[in-house]
């Protein structure tokens, strides 16, 4: 599972910040993989256990806005509530709304390391598209 997840995104160079390109066989999987990529950049995912689950709804004007909105909600739960997530189940998805259950645990300084601070997911050159049957998203994070 983790190996597959690890290959589901790659980082690309952006001078000051950090960009990711995420892939998925469908739109749901693309969003799941983007959620995983976010936390993979923040911490060592091998050390995150599933101890709790939360419902999460994100809304956007279009798929690009929905992607930023989804990452924004995940970041909020991480930065303010202290969660690290590793499993993402999307129950409902349209171009504008996404309903999911996210699973993980609260940050524990004895077991977890925070590798970097991600300030926000930006709209800079944001992309969500299906190319030759593969869903691709490009996102630049402000770090």
């Amino acid at each position, binding site marked *: 599972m983790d190996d597959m997840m690890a290959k589901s995104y790659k980082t690309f160079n*952006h001078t000051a910040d950090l960009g990711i390109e995420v892939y998925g066989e469908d739109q749901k999987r693309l969003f799941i993989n983007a959620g995983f990529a976010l936390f993979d950049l923040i911490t060592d995912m091998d050390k995150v256990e599933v101890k709790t689950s939360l419902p999460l709804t994100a809304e956007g004007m279009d798929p690009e806005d929905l992607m930023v909105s989804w990452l924004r909600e995940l970041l909020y739960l991480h930065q303010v509530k202290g969660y690290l997530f590793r499993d993402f189940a999307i129950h409902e998805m349209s171009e504008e709304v996404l309903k999911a259950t996210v699973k993980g645990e609260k940050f524990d300084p004895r077991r977890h390391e925070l590798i970097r601070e991600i300030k926000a997911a930006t*709209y*800079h*050159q944001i992309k969500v598209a299906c190319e030759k049957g593969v869903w691709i998203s490009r996102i630049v994070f402000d770090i």
Partner: protein
Amino acid sequence: MEIKGKLTIEKVDDYHFKIPCSEGMQVPGLIYANQKLIDDIKLDESLRQVANVAHLPGIIKYSLAMPDMHWGYGFPIGGVAAFDLEEGIISPGGVGYDINCGCRILRTDLTLPDVRDKMRQLVTALFRGIPSGVGSTGKIKLNVNEEKRVLRKGARWAVEKGYGDMEDLERTEDKGVMEDADPEVVSQRALERGRNQLGTLGSGNHFLEIGVVDEIYDQEAARAFDLFENQIVVSIHSGSRGFGYQVCDDFIKAMLHKTGKMNIELPDRQLVCAYLKSEMGKKYYAGMACAANYAWANREVLTHWTREILEKTLNLSPGDLNMNLVYDVCHNIAKKEVHTIDGKERKVCVHRKGATRAFPAGHQDVPKVYREVGQPVLIPGDMGRCSYVLVGTEKAMEETFGSTCHGAGRLMSRTKAKKSCRGRSIAQEMEERGIVVMAEGRATLAEEIPEAYKDVSDVVEVVHQAGISKKVAKLKPLGVVKG
């Protein structure tokens, strides 16, 4: 939605490069750089971003960029743009997520021999005493009402609570408070994110540094700033922490959802904006001012603890240390200022994203103590080379809305910097250069290696030669705490 086609760059003279107006650009782009720097700048997408900013309604004269410019998101880092209050816009992406990320320098009565053998002890004490690193929370816990007081009062809140001195306020840009702040416009989320982070340095490029004055270029200004050769100084670089990030994010979202109604076609969504005179524009300005105030309070608290730690570690009284603030500048801000445009004085909104205000001698916003020489401008470099103190000039008022560069500017992406560090001990390399470095985050030192940045001396030489600020002093790092 990026502009298609190749950009034309024209060399105006040794220190100015121009992007002529092409379709959709309201004004030309003007970049301060020399040939070497412009060759590096061309490697990323920041010139395209200068052109993109020139599309925004109400932009005046030029879309400007400083020599430390690099690829940002929306606006380039190092970008300066002024907008008409009636027809122009304000853009959260033109300020950045870390609102009022800024830098201050404190002078002391100490000289190099006083601390040379105590650097490890001092850096360790600062590293332990100043909360830093990813998601760091501070020793100050605020309830909602107290937090709102911070947002209204800025650095003054800190001084009233016993952190720092009244004199510090006089030597802070805007006296450490933007009066337009209105805590009622910021979200619950922003308040939540800010509650436990006051008095924290943060991570990434934020730092606290002990340095020595290595060279003086302008004796008169140095005397006014109370700087002399071999003197020990302390620099603090930090911002508005999670509070500012959230304010920026909230308003980008809110403005984006309204853009359809504005009839503005954006070359990049991150350039989203609102007319300054609109309700949304006013709300953002009031929210941004809250974050600016949070950042000033933050740097003031950090200053207080730094003074305490130095006094305790060196066993000195406050009078012996005499650690006074030289000045505190914003790097990421939008401000309503009066500038002369086509011979007439006009109030405009100047965005500085990774740029520093550089007001000249005689300007009423320059503290009285410095009014005869001009505003101190603080330019931190990377952790291995040097930093500069400059002074603002009349030429900056004429050409750049009273603005200059803000630092070295990144050259390498963080990923590339990390790759180049495999198998190296950066702390040891720095120690061999005579600099004690401690960092909270495992990745920080690798991402912040000196070669990841442009040489700040190249950057400063351009602004000095172009005349938009003048060199006063060069500082060399001795000890650095990184987040």
